[in-house]
């Protein structure tokens, strides 16, 4: 069967998106692969389709539980029943059942933690897989912002002689991270595909302010006067809440979004935004994963993000419908200091390293530190991984190095923020690509006719009002 026919039969599409066919053909030819595709561009199809052609199970290693859940749901929705998620959510009985029948599934999702368990390894060693997929592969890079030590540990697992092809997937990857992925996973001359990072329909604006107060004024006015839907990215939860409050007071349809809210609340906001009940989301960088809204017209960064990859990913949420959209980066002297403070705030410090050793000496579980809230979960993961392997001095040196790398990433972002040349050329160049053609309304330095892109906020959108409980109950269950 032709690939297109398989595509139509199982997924209902008639054509491939850029890169998908190439990646799939490489896998079917038994090659390793690295596929860098943005979220929402059909990354998962690269292993889902081979799953229907190759007759043995596909193993997908995914570091984020929520993401794993999403993908399992997605497959179930297209009618796939032979799919299982082997994770810590399973009860002992469920896990035993899943392991016993493991070779009968078409898609096996699992976490790096689970993969390190002996019974799981033993079972996998006894069965044949057609393909191993490493999702969110940038987590493997110790320079990545969400480094997962367990991913490093599974590296060994991949170096074995007879193994099926490995496909590494990621939405964000710079050359450095790609190199890390290649070596850590011991990929053999992998086929590499990287999407064209340039998004010609997004104009890249930038506004520089003399001080913070001016910036705040500008934001308030801009949001009042121009039309959404839009995302305003903020550097902290508190600022997101403050701005959202101010906008709400001004009668705008706005909500704050950050990881401090409960899962339901976050989903409510996403749905309100998608349904058009909200015009703006004031968010931290927690917003965006899995958001499927194609008509976002503006993405504004109140301050510099931590690195260029984040910036690209965040502005990439605008204009998915192919219509013109606008990204505006705001800058004021000293913003880079704030960014540096934020990116290293989450790292373990030298005193954490000492304390870890001290606890080990006292034969106390070091995870005590986590329970006491002395540091974040990510920080503890990094600390624990290296402390088990290396001396105090080595760990400290490593952490210093990590801080420097993070500073460097901020400086790279700063360079793009302050450039007097074409911003688009710089951005694309950062990912090792060459800009083919400059669009009209390219960037701040090439010139943007804002009036051509920004639509004025003409009418006062009506705030959604609460209706009586009986009507609401009817609306939910019966309609009208």
């Amino acid at each position, binding site marked *: 069967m032709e690939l297109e026919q398989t595509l139509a039969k199982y997924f209902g599409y008639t054509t491939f998106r850029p890169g998908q066919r190439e990646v799939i053909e490489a896998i079917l030819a038994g090659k390793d692969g690295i596929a860098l595709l943005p979220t929402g561009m059909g990354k998962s199809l690269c292993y889902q389709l081979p799953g229907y052609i190759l007759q043995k199970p596909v193993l997908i290693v995914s570091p984020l539980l929520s993401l794993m859940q999403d993908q399992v*749901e997605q497959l179930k*929705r297209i009618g796939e029943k032979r799919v299982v998620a082997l994770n810590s959510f399973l009860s002992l009985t469920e896990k035993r059942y899943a392991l016993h029948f493991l070779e009968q599934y078409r898609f096996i999702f699992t976490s790096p933690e689970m993969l390190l368990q002996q019974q799981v390894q033993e079972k996998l060693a006894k069965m044949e897989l057609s393909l191993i997929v490493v999702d969110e592969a940038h987590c493997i890079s110790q320079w990545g912002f969400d480094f997962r030590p367990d991913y490093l540990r599974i590296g060994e697992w991949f170096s074995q002689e007879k193994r099926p092809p490995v496909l590494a997937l990621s939405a964000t990857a710079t050359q450095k991270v790609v190199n890390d992925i290649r070596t850590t996973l011991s990929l053999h001359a992998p086929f590499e595909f990287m999407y064209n990072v340039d998004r010609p329909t997004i104009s890249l604006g930038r506004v520089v302010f003399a001080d913070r107060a001016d910036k705040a004024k500008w934001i308030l006015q801009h949001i009042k006067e121009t039309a959404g839907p839009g995302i305003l990215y903020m550097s902290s939860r508190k600022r997101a809440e403050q701005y959202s409050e101010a906008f709400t007071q001004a009668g705008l349809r706005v909500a704050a979004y950050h990881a401090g809210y409960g899962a339901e609340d976050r989903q409510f906001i996403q749905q309100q935004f998608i349904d058009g009940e909200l015009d703006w989301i004031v968010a931290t960088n927690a917003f965006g994963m899995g958001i499927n809204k194609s008509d976002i017209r503006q993405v504004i960064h109140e301050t510099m993000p931590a690195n260029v990859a984040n910036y690209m990913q965040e502005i990439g949420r605008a204009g998915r419908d192919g219509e013109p959209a606008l990204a505006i980066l705001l800058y004021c002297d000293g913003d880079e200091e704030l960014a540096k403070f934020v990116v290293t705030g989450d790292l373990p410090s030298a005193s954490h390293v000492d304390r870890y050793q001290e606890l080990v000496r006292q034969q106390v579980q070091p995870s005590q530190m986590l329970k006491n809230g002395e540091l974040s979960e990510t920080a503890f993961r990094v600390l624990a991984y290296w402390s088990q392997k290396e001396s105090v001095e080595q760990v400290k040196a490593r952490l210093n190095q990590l801080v420097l790398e993070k500073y460097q990433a901020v400086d790279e972002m700063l360079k793009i923020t302050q450039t007097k040349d074409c911003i688009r050329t710089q951005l694309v160049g950062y990912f090792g690509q060459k800009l083919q053609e400059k669009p009209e309304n390219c960037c701040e330095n090439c010139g943007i006719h804002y009036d051509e892109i920004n639509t004025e906020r003409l009418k006062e959108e009506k705030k959604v009002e*609460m209706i009586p409980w009986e009507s*609401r*109950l*009817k*609306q939910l269950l019966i309609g009208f």
Partner: protein
Amino acid sequence: MFHQILLQIFHKLNNERTVSAAYHVLRGKRSGQTIQDIGLFQLHNYFGLLPKLPRATFDEAVSTFSQYSWLNMQESGHYSMKKLGLQRAEQTATFLFDGWHYRGNEHAFFARLSLIVQSLSYHRADMHSFSPISKDPQVQAWVRAFLVNHNYQLGHLQQQLFEECQQVLTALPLADRQKQLVLYRLSGHSSPGWTWQQLASERNESVLDSQLAFIELLHTLLNEVHQNSTYALLGQIADGLRIKALLTDSAQQTAQLYEQGYSLEQIVQLRNLKQSTIEDHLVEIAMNEPNFSIGPFVSYEEAEKVWQASKHYQTKKLKALHEVVEGMSYFQLRLVLAKGEV
């Protein structure tokens, strides 16, 4: 609402405990002391209403109370209600919480209900894919089985559930605004739910107060569903969520041995626990089991003396009672107090 509840708890604790006792009650701490306080001071309603209540939020409320001159704080952590505080406490509304029997399980009920409503709403709109509001695989599996058992594909389930919800909500003696609040925590196709922030600001109160109003409604709803057999669907959704075994696990084991006829001393030996621990268990049992008799440990005359003294001196403090009622152990006093009020 939070302040009113806290004031009521302080009022009931009768200046005889530290402020932390109220905190443990709200968090639903399962320690012997807290469980005893629940029985002694009749705090069942409030038990475990806010399992995640941050200490800072609690402390803030207490210091507000001092500022308002509702109570005096002592260095030992004890407090005493002032006249103004007592007046305010008596003016507070009567709440219909039932923390003792649900202990947070109301959230499990609501997770099931939310996913059922969401599924039915999308199904009615002919949309077969949506992002489930509950990510918990156990809830998802439960709801899937429920929907399949009720042949949701026939399309009648929406109407049935609508009627039951309408009936139960109409029956509840709570304000329409409170029912509205709960309905806005549900979501469906083209009808997203509202966040706590949005609801609280619409209702002009704190997020915590909105959450408490939500819990109160669920408790009354669950009790209504449990007391009447007319709610076929809701009865199933609420199944198994009302706490039956009110004892802690260890006390449960002691209760079993005691029922089999073993004496206190024998249980101490059998279980290889301290005598004081087994005594704690027996007090817990006295409080929770209406059929448990304290007769083997205390005579009726002795019990009568304790009740009189407690009334006369307006106290449930063991130390004070120990001084005025002669010849009785602390264990006996606790048994009498535990049994006396229940």
